[in-house]
């Protein structure tokens, strides 16, 4: 009974203290906005863990040099989750409770982002542009997550539509990673199968696998003329080399995580002609986003430590979205005003295809541009498709 009383007492005190502090928004002062970013700095994706925030900081520095947003400069804290959902939760709690960040931004990974959803809801904090293209981030609607990237399921649909436009009689094979990434790709594949009344030949592999001769052999036997790879960076390289060694030459295509210049380099001649889906303009294209990115890179970055490339461009591009929403939230920046700004963001910044967020849609434009390897270099070969 006494415990209960003291619990009640303490809760009341806390509430009073909470009310008294209400005018102060965590992470926002007259001169600064503090945002939290959770990356994989020492796990399997640690390369990205450096490149994404570095790209974002190019834009933040550009904005800060112009005087910031209503006089507030942006400062970003980066925590490490090692691609472990439990650590992602710990990092999110630390950023929110200890460092008192204003919002979360660019948490990388699907299961890691999903693990912190309960925290976002508990603290009513938005997560802007999670670094994952899983469609599950915005469909069904997550109240506090705002996704800039086109989902794997949508990408799958676009790729299959594209293949069938090129070749009505194409037999399509799919190699997917048997995890949540692959599951989202399969969802898109099932939608396309139903629309076109076709059946894909599906082969799966476990994360970390390095031998694909079985899967490639099966697709060869099945006579697939087009093979879509739902892998990351390593898999298309190995798959295309394996196929070449077997004398099997279908058209290979891949989802956005395979849209990496290293695929073109490492796969060599076997990778020539490889087509990957991309949810943002290619970093070396002439779209306004990439042009500004290269200009800022020239101005602020040391090319030795931060080379130009798709990942730092991705970080930059999402930063433009975040900044735009922060600007729209106005001078009186609170979490409520920020959420309102996010819920009505009409993005036309050029770093992503134009999109609109509303109260009921926190997803991307749903558009994809195709990027092909030609003479060992990536070039865009299509308009925005959806």
């Amino acid at each position: 009974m006494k415990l209960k009383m003291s619990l009640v007492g303490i809760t009341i005190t806390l509430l009073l203290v909470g009310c008294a502090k209400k005018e102060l928004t965590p992470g926002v002062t007259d001169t600064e906005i503090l945002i939290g970013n959770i990356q994989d700095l020492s796990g399997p994706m640690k390369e990205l863990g450096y490149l994404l925030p570095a790209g974002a900081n190019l834009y933040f520095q550009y904005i800060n040099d112009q005087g910031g947003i209503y006089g507030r400069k942006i400062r970003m804290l980066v925590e490490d989750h090692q691609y472990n959902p439990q650590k992602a939760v710990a990092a999110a709690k630390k950023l929110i409770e200890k460092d008192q960040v204003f919002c979360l931004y660019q948490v990388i990974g699907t299961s890691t982002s999903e693990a912190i959803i309960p925290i976002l809801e508990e603290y009513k904090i938005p997560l802007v542009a999670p670094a994952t293209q899983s469609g599950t981030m915005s469909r069904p609607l997550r109240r506090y997550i705002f996704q800039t990237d086109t989902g794997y399921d949508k990408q799958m649909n676009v790729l299959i539509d594209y293949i069938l436009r090129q070749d009505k009689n194409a037999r399509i094979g799919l190699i997917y990673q048997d995890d949540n990434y692959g599951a989202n790709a399969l969802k898109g594949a099932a939608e396309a199968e139903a629309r076109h009344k076709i059946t894909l030949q599906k082969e799966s592999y476990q994360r970390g696998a390095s031998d694909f001769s079985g899967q490639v052999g099966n697709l060869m036997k099945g006579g697939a003329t087009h093979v879509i790879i739902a892998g990351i960076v390593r898999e298309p390289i190995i798959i295309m080399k394996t196929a070449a060694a077997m004398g099997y030459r279908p058209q290979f295509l891949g989802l956005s995580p395979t849209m990496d210049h290293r695929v073109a380099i490492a796969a060599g001649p076997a990778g020539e002609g490889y087509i990957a889906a991309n949810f943002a303009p290619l970093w070396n294209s002439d779209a306004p986003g990439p042009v500004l990115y290269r200009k800022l890179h020239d101005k602020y970055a040391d090319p030795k430590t931060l080379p130009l490339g798709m990942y730092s461009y991705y970080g930059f591009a999402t930063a433009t979205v975040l900044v735009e929403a922060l600007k729209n939230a106005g001078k009186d920046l609170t979490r409520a005003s920020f959420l309102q700004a996010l819920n009505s963001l009409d993005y036309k910044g050029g770093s992503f295809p134009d999109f609109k967020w509303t109260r009921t849609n926190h997803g991307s434009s749903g558009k994809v541009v195709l990027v092909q390897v030609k003479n060992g270099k990536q070039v865009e070969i299509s308009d925005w498709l959806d």
Partner: protein
Amino acid sequence: MKGRYEDEKLFWIPVLIAAVFLLPFLLKGMTNSYRYYLYVLNIAGIYMILTVGLDLLSGYTGLISLGHAAFFAIGAYLSAILVDQGGLPFELSLIIAPLLTGLFGLVIGFPALRLEGMYLGLATMGFGFIVKRMIIALRQWTQGSNGLQVSSPHIFGFTFRNDWDNYFLIYTGVVLTVVIARRMVRSKLGRAFMAIRDSERAAEAVGIRLAKYKMISFFISGVFAGFAGVLFAHTSHFISTDHFDILLSVYFIIMILVGGVGSIYGAVLGALFIVLLDNLAIPLFKDWLQTFITVEAGDIQSLIFGLIMFLFIIFQPTGLYGLWLKVRIYWKLFPFNPRKRFS
């Protein structure tokens, strides 16, 4: 009748328990970000429950397990499915899911009867991989690799909504676990476990059925791991296969090694030590180190964990708990030199 153990001073136990439950109030008074520290303590508490169970198996019975993350996962998923999909009340799931996990313990315990040391370690590790695959394969219930949203703990009308509430739930579990485990190891059961560990011949010669007691040990260890899993699933609200990595099993082993193999308090201390080190000390150390070179917490974490384990095995094989006993005896006997008391 004389007490059997020097530490059977029951006075301290209620004091300790009271301290555990007063700690959150203290933290709240001390810092604004107390909820973060409570979260870290909650994770430590869940791991304590698991490591106490692991210690019964590996420390007391001498059967190494590199698959405890799998039991942890089974308990978590079972409860999530039973409660959220099967409509079982959480109060019941708190009992049923651990018992079912214990049955999985029996399944893996069976081959263990023929395996020892390293081979048993590998077999249990294999079990970990199988469980992970099973979770992905049973999509219908587990959502495969998408991960599963889990409801909050709900006991007799009270819902545990945040880290503050969860702390009291979890540490009630820890206290229960420690009391039950202490009772167990001091009974016939614990003596049988230790006899199996140190001399299977002596065990058989006094009438202990090795197979039976090894299975019991696996079962009990599974129950504790399952219990920890249930608490984990419902307090973190989201579970996925990524949570239950093979490395986690290794960390559990490090926790009992550091705490002191074959001691219940040791397992508790070990879990606390490693979790605090991982979440609070290593980031500070990293920040300091980063003034000289670019490193990330994860890079030095494995290094520090490895180093700590190495140092403990070489210099302090009885772990933190053994160290505490030594210190206590030292002060009791001061100024007489109490060397060799525990050598």
